[in-house]
């Protein structure tokens, strides 16, 4: 449908002023609200985009030093290499409905101190002491108190050992006995995607924390460098 109309005159017609004014008036009307109807597809290039932050936005936390954080907790605790700085990335924005939050995370496990590595489905004490895990926790509020949800959990093992209840590090001398190879100085890496289904402007994302735990408090998980990268994919 044409936005700017042009009257068709034939020889001998006497145009009225309104007819002659119409194309100009149509342009004036249309030009006050240019939208997708009167622009070409694919016209928006990088030069047209507001600078900065019109498209995706990135939030990050980076610790790239050598100071290890020792994790001995059997419930998730936030990694903190240098007090008082937690491994967390501040968000502080309200997502639109169905907006996507993408999170990338990685780090380095250093010389973990491993005492027991039972590796089976049996109940403690012969349970799954070989494992440790990471969690990305998203903190948000809906106008009230802060709430926490998990974006995902990722598990790793201290040794290469496969199952069995009799293969473990002994507690008496701390040395590996009939066990797999201890794994240290290895990277961890994972990512997550979260879609916010609620109403636009209702929820506020506060932060994302990188947390870790061990399954047995006698084992010490040592984490050095780590980072969290959050990408807000705007509509």
């Amino acid at each position, binding site marked *: 449908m044409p936005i700017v109309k042009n009257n068709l005159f034939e020889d001998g017609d006497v145009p009225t002023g309104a007819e002659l004014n119409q194309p100009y008036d149509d342009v004036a009307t249309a030009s006050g609200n240019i939208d997708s109807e009167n622009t070409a597809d694919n016209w928006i290039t990088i030069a047209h985009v507001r600078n900065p932050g019109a498209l995706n936005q990135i939030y990050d936390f980076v610790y790239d030093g050598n100071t290890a954080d020792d994790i001995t907790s059997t419930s998730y605790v936030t990694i903190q290499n240098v007090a008082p700085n937690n491994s967390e990335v501040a968000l502080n924005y309200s997502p639109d409905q169905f907006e996507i939050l993408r999170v990338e995370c990685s780090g380095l496990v250093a010389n973990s101190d491993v005492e027991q590595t039972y590796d089976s489905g049996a109940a403690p004490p012969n349970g799954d002491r070989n494992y440790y895990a990471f969690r990305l926790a998203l903190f948000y509020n809906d106008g009230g108190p802060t709430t926490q949800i998990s974006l995902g959990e990722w598990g790793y093992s201290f040794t290469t050992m496969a199952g069995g209840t009799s293969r473990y590090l002994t507690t008496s001398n701390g040395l590996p006995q*009939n066990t797999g190879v*201890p794994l240290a100085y290895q990277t961890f890496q994972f990512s997550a995607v979260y879609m916010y289904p609620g109403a636009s402007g209702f929820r506020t994302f506060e932060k994302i924390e990188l947390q870790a735990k061990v399954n047995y408090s006698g084992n010490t998980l040592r984490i050095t460098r780590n980072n969290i990268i959050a990408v807000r994919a705007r509509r």
Partner: protein
Amino acid sequence: MAYSKPNTIPNSGVLAADDIKGNDEELKEYVNQNINGSTDYGTNVFGTEEFQLGDYQPITNEYSFVSGIATGGQVIDEQVDRGYWTNTIKKARLNDNTLPVWTSIYETSPAIYLERTADLLITFGATSVSAVQTVATTGFWDTTLKLAYTKDDDNELIFVEQSRSYSFEEAGMTSAGPSGNVNPFGPTGKPSSGGDENPEIRNGLRRWIGWSVILRGLQPGHYKFSVYANAKVEEGYLGARQFKAEVFYT
């Protein structure tokens, strides 16, 4: 500001040519140079179909989007695709911790041109193998792997510590490793001497290395990225690997 016709044509009387010409001139000027993005464009009216289509550059293996650039590559563990590193250039000081010689690893090195200030997200994953070490005492020597880059004509390598990772020499592990290297076996200093089979040890050392890094506020210009190895073995390589770089223009 929206177009506004300077002259209104009256309903009666003789039509003045200047009225028509004036309106047309103003219209030409508006269409050609005066459309204002902040006042004339409607709000919340454009969709993704208005964005410029992505543009693939086969020579550099880049995809250019309005929001930035995406590039990368991946290979499986075919021998011809491996990215080897070696330490023959400092053979006399093969395991010296104070003499790093950084080798760029094949197929992990895109060159990126940034049109404007950008954030760069790189994700990397690889199988690393450190195979041969005949110069020094056997003992899981640690080859350090890091991302680094150069900018424009400056050849100085800028290392990204967020990516620090290790590849360990594969060897018979019945004793603690030599001093001066990172010990992959933690505080006990050695793996089991009582019953570990060699395949277990090899598999424990041949690990997948993975990291993501973020570089904020990179200035416009040419960047050359690569994963570098400070080799402590005479033959090591990355097998299967993937490298992805995503540019987010800010």
